[in-house]
């Protein structure tokens, strides 16, 4: 009888051999397209603003001549398409123009805010991920035990709360009413960077961490339980593999994959969630910048910040998908 040999692989198209590169390529292309559409939508949305942009800037001091002059300066006298093109090419080439509210260069204003928000997002994201994954894993290993029940209840409670509620509760607890350990607001001086005063970071980051942990924890727990009840774990037990080895080598790697999706979503959520947190704590980040710009009808700043946020979204989506692919060999390597 012929031995059951592993068949010699037929040379497959490059496409099948490099799924990661293909994925990045496809996603990046879609991402660029998405950003394109987003920019158009943003542009159109802001153009729908009632009233003339120039008029809102000049207000009562407007005279027909100054209006005319500002309009030319803002290119408002050109057609819609021209205006869009001017703006879009400006972004691509780095000429962002100036804020309507205070006349300063947009980049100079927005860049430090960007950095501050990045500190919040990355910090909260990392801490939340690590803690969430650990809590989820432990809850799964001690399924139906007291730890599981307690974390499950707390998870459910916290996940239901709006961010500003969490923020305010933390403020009440640690800053104003109960204890007075930490500052209630975090007015990092505009122009300086957040890490220069770590005390100001504690409550905002804590708020964000608390908000994202529950989802990550629940997903990790569910994935881990599924892994622990799977056929391959049962097989490993029947082989005599000790439990700790099963958890580390079998259960954990298999439960990370679905959790990656959730972790990615959490980072995305943080990008939007900082808006409220920055407002509550008066933190000079990009969220606060956006809210201010919207109040001031500062169109170029609004447009720029929204595009930045959208870019972050697309980027995170790609990164999440790539990592998810790296972690599951079944999708990564074709037969």
């Amino acid at each position, binding site marked *: 009888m012929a*031995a059951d*040999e592993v068949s010699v692989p037929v040379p497959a198209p490059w496409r099948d051999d490099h799924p990661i590169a293909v994925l990045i390529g496809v996603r990046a292309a879609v991402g660029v397209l998405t950003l394109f559409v987003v920019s158009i939508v943003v542009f159109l949305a802001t153009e729908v603003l009632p009233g003339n942009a120039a008029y809102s800037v000049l207000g009562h001091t407007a005279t027909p001549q100054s209006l005319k002059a500002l309009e030319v300066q803002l290119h408002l006298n050109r057609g819609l398409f021209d205006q869009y093109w001017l703006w879009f090419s400006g972004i691509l080439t780095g000429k962002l123009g100036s804020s309507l509210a205070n006349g300063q260069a947009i980049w100079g204003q927005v860049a430090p805010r960007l950095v501050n928000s990045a500190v919040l997002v990355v910090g909260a994201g990392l801490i939340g991920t690590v803690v969430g994954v650990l809590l989820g894993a432990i809850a799964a290993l001690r399924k139906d035990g007291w730890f599981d029940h307690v974390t499950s209840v707390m998870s459910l409670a916290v996940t239901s709360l709006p961010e500003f509620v969490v923020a305010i509760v933390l403020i009440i607890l640690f800053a104003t009413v109960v204890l007075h350990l930490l500052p209630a607001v975090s007015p990092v001086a505009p122009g300086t960077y957040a890490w220069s005063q770590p005390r100001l970071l504690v409550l905002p980051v804590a708020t964000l961490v608390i908000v994202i942990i529950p989802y990550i924890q629940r997903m990790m727990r569910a994935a881990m339980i599924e892994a622990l009840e799977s056929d391959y774990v049962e097989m490993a037990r*029947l*082989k005599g593999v000790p439990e700790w*080895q099963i958890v580390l080598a079998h259960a954990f790697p298999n439960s990370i994959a679905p959790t990656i999706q959730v972790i990615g979503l959490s980072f995305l959520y943080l990008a939007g969630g900082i808006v409220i947190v920055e407002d509550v704590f008066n933190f000079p980040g990009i969220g606060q910048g956006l809210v201010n710009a919207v109040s001031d009808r500062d169109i170029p700043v609004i447009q720029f910040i929204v595009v930045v946020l959208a870019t972050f979204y697309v980027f995170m989506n790609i990164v999440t998908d790539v990592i998810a692919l790296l972690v599951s060999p*079944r999708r990564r*390597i074709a037969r």
Partner: protein
Amino acid sequence: MSALVENSANHLADTGPVRLEVKDLSIQLTSGGAEVVGDVSFSVRAAELLGLVGESGSGKTTVALALLGHARRGLDISAGEIRLDGENILGLKAAELRQLRGAKVAYVPQDPSAALDPTLRIGFQLREALRVHPGSVGDVEERVAEMLRESRLDSTPEVLKRYPHQLSGGQQQRVTLAMAFACRPSLIVLDEPTTGLDVSTQRHVLETVRSLCRSYGVAAVYVSHDLAVVGGLVSQVAVMYAGRVVEIGPTEQVFGLPVHPYTRGLLAAVPSPKRAEVLTGIEGQPPRPGRKPKGCAFAPRCSYAVSNCFVERPVPVAIGDSYVRCMRARDIEKESHARRVTPPTALAGTGDAVLKLRGLDASYGRQRVLYDVDLDVHPESCTAIVGESGSGKTTLARCIVGLHSNWTGEITFKGNRLANGARHRQKAVLKQIQYIFQNPYTSLNPRKTIGQILSEPLEHFMRLPGDERKARVTRVLEDVSLGLDFLDRYPDQLSGGERQRVAIARAIVVEPDLLVCDEVTSALDVSVQAVTVEVLRRLQRERRLSMVFITHNLALVRSIAQTAVVLCEGRIVEVGPVEQVLEHPKDPYTIRLIEDVPRLAEVGSVPDTAPSPN
């Protein structure tokens, strides 16, 4: 009879020491304490194989896992002894048990694709089996290479680097076999290891098992529902029903001269490729744990039952070399073993072929699946299309019915050409060709009652007044032997066999001309399969239907079809009347296929089921 006894005595005498001894094993549900497995006893010697046979719900997998001291969540091993080389493993502490598993007793799973960790390479998983038992092996790498060779896997380093999904089903199973034999255990427990494998791969795997057991003096317990496979492999058989062993003894005796009514019923349901016969199944279902009747668990379905059977629990009675758990064992033993073989009445189909396929080429995306298929299906007759997995038989069925539209060629039904997809066919045409799906658990909408499921086709195809519809639905339920109380039930309240009968009823309620059955019995137990096949056959005869019957089970073909078509990798390799194809095959593929099919010998004769030295 005495010759038999002598034979088996000799057979048993020349095997080695007893490796496994199970005594009065009982397993119950954790919550409620209902008995799942009770009073199970058997023993296995070195180099001996014992077959543990039963259908769904018999408890055989539960017993198999218990042999490793393992009980699934919700189950507790409550009583009894399991002695491995003399030591009772049920009394061991967790750490000791862990050391035993893999080293002294090993497990071969049913589904290797699920039992191998998808994120770890094969090499890692093989080495893991050795690393956790450091005392039993010398050089790990050497042993790994040896393991691969023995299981007839290519022992190049490339294999070790692969992930499970990169191997075929047969290769995956060889890996699990290698893992099981790695530490040279005393006992191997195999849980239906050839399910889902092709017939030829199955044959290789069985041979590997047999030779490894013999070489290393390993005792083996082989769990299976496939009587033919077990018959050709093991020397001892234990038949389980509702958690108890109802008959146990040497294979020749249990399969050759069965005594217990359930064993008899089971054997009568197994189709044979050698004979066209009416298959007799066993109506009803096994009782669930906690719902077992007083007295004998099989009594409600038993044709030999007397009033005492419903009151007292039967105890094992010695009949020859076997033990039979039946109160009427001695009476039944005296009855004739000859199976009443009723050849089915063949239909005389006249006239032109009702379905014609010419030059049919089908593909899935870029992958070609069918090549130039020509086929004729004659009126009022059944054509069986036989093939292994990957042969394209399901695709063929789907093209005929319109579920698969990526094909070229010609399909003619009653003289008219059919469009590629069902969406492009007229309702009148759709009505005349009906399809029955393989999986009874997904072919019925769980949110609809049986009554609704059956009257839907009537609503869509015909304009009938409400009471006329109801009358037809009632009639068709009777035709498939289901009671009227099924009308208001939901599918999840029915068993697999009942669901499949509903699917059949749904297909015939609109009175089609052609019925396409796609592996309709593959998901069912043997006894249920027999009942379903008989229902189909009777309906075909009564309603003068033409039928296309897709299957991989060659033996079944004999009992239901008049014409057989053999499909290999998308091409038809043989066509002809059933007897001719099965008795005198011409194509080498067909010949090999028939050879590889494990066969159960005739009931009532002294069969040739002793494991042949191969």
